[in-house]
Structure formats: C-alpha cells, structure tokens
C-alpha cells in the first residue's frame, strides 16, 4: 500500500509528471537521519523531532540564521494565502501537497474558520507524517478532509485519488508550500506543476513558497547544501526568482506578485523586520 518495490528499478527521473505508473519510494522511517517534515517541526518549535533533526537544523542555523525566521514566516504565509483564497477568491477546495507534521493553523483549519464547508485533500509521501495528519487534522462536519499517501512526482496518483473528494469541474487551489525545492531539476518540477494545473479548471489557483537561491550568498548556499547532504534524508534545490516565477507560466499573479514570504500581503501583525530566504506567490489560472 505504501511502498511499491517494483517501481524502484525505474528510478525517479523520467517518471515525473509524465503520467507513467512510476511511484517514488516513501522515505524509510529512520530517526538517525534528519527528515524534512521533522526539521520543519523543530524550526517551528514542535516536539515531534529527534536528535538527528535538531543537530542538522542547529548546523544549518549556524550557516543561515535566517532559517528559523523563514520557517515561521513561511507558516504565516500559508495562513494568509489560504485566507486570501477562501475569503477573497472564493475558493472552497484545496489540494495541499507536502502537508508536513500538523502544527497550529493547518490549511483546513484556516479555510474552515472562514468557510466551514471547505474541502481539503492533504498529500504527503512520508507515512509517519501522514499518520500524524490523519490523527490530528480532523475536519468540521460541514467540510471534509482526505489524505493521500503519494509522492509529488506521482501526479496521476494524486489527481486520481483527490477526485474522490474534490470536484475538478470547480476551482481548486493547489498549494505547494515549501516542497518544490525538495524536487531536483532532474525530476522536472516545472512539468509536475504544469500537470497539476492542467487538471484544474479556469479560476483555480496555485500557491507556492520556495527556498530562494538568490536570497542567500553563494557561500551560504554551498555550505547549507553540504550540511543537508551530510545529515538529511532529503536534498534541497533552492531556486532563483526567475525559476520560481516559471512555475506560474500562463497564470495571473495575485498582488504583490512574487515576493519573499513575509512580504506577500503582510498583515499588521506580520513580522516584516526580518528577511526570509523563501520566495512565494499565488497565481490564478485564467
């Protein structure tokens, strides 16, 4: 159900977004190496992390102290983006890929606080993260939540299963919050996003946050990459402003366009005194 050993030989490259039956393997549950979801949990002050996660983060914070603020600002961006999508864009359906370990202000909670009938499909490829999501992300009675155990690269699996809860003839917001930098160029993240957007109708939205390679010095980027390589289950590919903008090809960007997470429609309580190293944008499919 979770792992498909037969696909292992195919590798991940080449299956991305192409709609073939390839399925990436979920990460093994291994607390001796740092894990993306647990790293983020630790950065946000959660308690669902292990020594290896904390060591990796502490090493990264020495190189890029902005990372702590970035994680919190990214979380706050998610909240503002979802509020915008529900309250101003009228969205009631979400496909949230890269759910992570639940914390305060999860997508369905933000959405359902405004529109209780909101429906949210959460997708994550990490079975332990998904167990947390299933246990903790419970919907209002008026709305619904569903969980899909799939890798972002398996777009056909995601779209097929999401259709059980979401009506793809009506607008859907696809949110890819702090996940696309975990997809290397070889897996063609732009094609993955294009495939997802092809499946949703006009009036749908795309929300992205993405670590910015041009928001840090070349040296920081190099050292940070070396730490992840040594400590982490997932590797990261921060991308430039232009590369992130390309995800929105053919979409109309919502004001203020592409911006650092803390600069995207800040609210009075948004901390804009610090600088994150994460790009963000929300765009509408015409």
């Amino acid at each position, binding site marked *: 159900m979770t792992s498909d050993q037969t696909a292992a030989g195919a590798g991940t490259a080449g299956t991305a977004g192409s709609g073939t039956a390839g399925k990436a393997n979920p990460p093994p549950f291994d607390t001796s190496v740092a894990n993306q979801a647990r790293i983020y949990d630790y950065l946000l002050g959660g308690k669902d992390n292990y020594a290896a996660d904390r060591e990796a983060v502490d090493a990264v914070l020495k190189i890029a102290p902005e990372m702590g603020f970035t994680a919190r600002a990214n979380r706050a961006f998610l909240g503002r983006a979802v509020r915008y999508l529900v309250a101003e864009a009228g969205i009631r359906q979400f496909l949230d890929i890269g759910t992570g370990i639940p914390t305060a202000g999860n997508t369905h909670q933000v959405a359902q606080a405004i529109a209780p009938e909101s429906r949210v499909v959460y997708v994550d490829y990490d079975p332990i993260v998904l167990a*947390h999501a299933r246990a903790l992300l419970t919907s209002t009675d008026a709305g619904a939540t569903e969980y899909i155990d799939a890798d972002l690269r398996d777009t056909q699996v995601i779209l097929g299963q999401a259709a059980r809860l979401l009506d793809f003839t009506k607008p859907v917001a696809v949110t890819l919050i702090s996940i696309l930098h975990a997809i290397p160029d070889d897996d063609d993240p732009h094609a993955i996003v294009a495939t997802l957007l092809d499946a949703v109708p006009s009036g749908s939205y795309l929300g992205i946050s993405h670590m910015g390679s041009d928001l840090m010095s070349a040296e920081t980027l190099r050292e940070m990459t070396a730490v992840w390589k040594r400590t982490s289950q997932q590797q990261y590919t921060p991308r430039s402003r232009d590369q992130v903008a390309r995800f929105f090809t053919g979409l109309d960007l919502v004001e203020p366009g592409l911006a650092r997470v803390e600069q995207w429609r800040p609210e009075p309580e948004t901390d804009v005194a610090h600088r994150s190293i994460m790009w963000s944008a929300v765009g509408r499919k015409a």
Partner: protein
Amino acid sequence: MDAGLPSLPPLPDPDDVPAEATVLRMLLGAQLRRLRESAGISAEQAAYPIRASRSKISRMETGRVGFKLRDVEDLLTLYGVTDGQQRTEILALARRSSAPDWWARYGDILPGWFETYLGLESAATTIRSFEVQFVPGLFQTEDYARAVTQLGHHSASPAEIDRRVALRIKRQELLSRPSPPRVWAVMDEAVLRRPYGGPEVMREQLRRLAQAAARPQVTLQVVPFARGGHAGASGAFSILRFAERDLPDVVYIEQLTSALYLDQRPDVEHYLEVVDQLSGQALTPADTAAFIEQAARET
C-alpha cells in the same frame, strides 16, 4: 558540599508534591519568567517588592515552590501586565496550582505513583498510548472496568472494587471538559479480542470504543494480527505532552506495583519513535472504526 558555597535554601523534593500541582506550577513559573524577561526586569529587582530573594524568584519560576496569590498579583503589576483578561488567567492558574486534586478523595485506594499519572494526564494536551491488552482506561465501560479491576484485585471487598471503578469512570470526565486533550491510542488487535467480563460486556465495550472513535478529539488505530509483528514489542505505554514549549514529554509505563516515568530526552525519543512507527503500521482511523464494528459483530 556546603563549604564555601553560597547557601541556598533546600529545594522541596519534587516527589513529595502531587504532579498536577507540580505541572501547573511549572507552567505558571515559565509564564512569569517570560513576562519578567520581556519587561527587562532582573530576578533581584523582582524579588524586592514581594519581600523575597533572587533565589526564591528562581524557584518560583521553575515551579519548585507554591505561589501566594498576592505575590503573583504584585509580580504581574511589576511586569506591567495590566490586561484584565491576562491577569485573570494567570491568577486562575495560580489558584488551581494550590488547590487539592479531585482524586485526593480516593487516597485510600490510590497508590502515590498512580496519583502522579492522574496529575500529568489532567495537565496534558496530547496523550498518545499503545495498548496491548486492555481498552484504554479513558474509554472503558463501567462493566469492563469492573471485570478488569476484579481480576487485578481478587481479594478486594465489593465496596473497594466499586470505588476503584468509580475512580476510573470519574477520570473519563477529562474527555468532556471544555478543551479536552487530544487522545491518540494505538491498540493491538488483542485489545479488541480478549473478552473481559464475557462477550456481552465486551460487545458493549466495543460499541463504546466505536463511539469514542467518532469524537473529534479522539484518534484510535488498531494494529491487526494480520500485519504480523510490530514495533511495540515492549508492551503498553503512554506519552503525555504538555502545551508549554519548555515542558518535556513524559513517558508512563505501568507495572504491577509501581510505574515508570521517563522524561529524559533519549528515553522519551525511543518511545516516540516506537509509537510513531506503530501509528504508521496500524490501520488508519477510518479503517479502524470499521474494524472495531466488525469485531463487535464477531464477539
């Protein structure tokens, strides 16, 4: 040990203090420290107006000593906390931290080590557990609880059994308080299959479990026999988590005549790992609900 060192008043032995009061004092102390620090006031400066020493402030802030309401009020004023709502909340916490616990009435049947658990349970925001044998106490029916209690205390009088069962049922009020803790239990299939009290009692118990699973604050997962071996080889345990960021998780392992409380990070993480792994191996909550109903039909 005392030669040449500044003399500090002896700390009370934390084991002498009921845990609920301890936890509440820790929470209150942590809040007071944060308020003091954000007001830019040193411990010495805080001590003077309440006629205390710097070390008394430090012991208050780590939850080692009780609080006088008047001291808390004076400190809040000193720290510039004038917001009525915030003052009321903190003072309510101070009051609760000195009130006797509800289970004090059950002192005759309550071993001290279990009293500690009740304190932690009532302070927790999340209770994760793994059960191999029994339905979690918070979801037991009276008849099931009686059957289990009788087995454990076969020489007890009927009156004592009644009191033990009454205590267990009273504990369940936790689930209906205004902001109940999140309870996330993973159960071995054996829990559903061993009919304590006979098939009728068990069927009723399974129905209760199915109802519990439907509550938004409750998550139940079963590891079916068919999934083979699982990570929980060690036996039953609970992990209690508290809202306060500074408070570590506590692992509780019940033994026949005592209990083990683990709060050192490496120990806690070992159990967290096991329960994480179990929750990944177990049926999803939705499939578990169907599984429990099926088990009820088969009992």
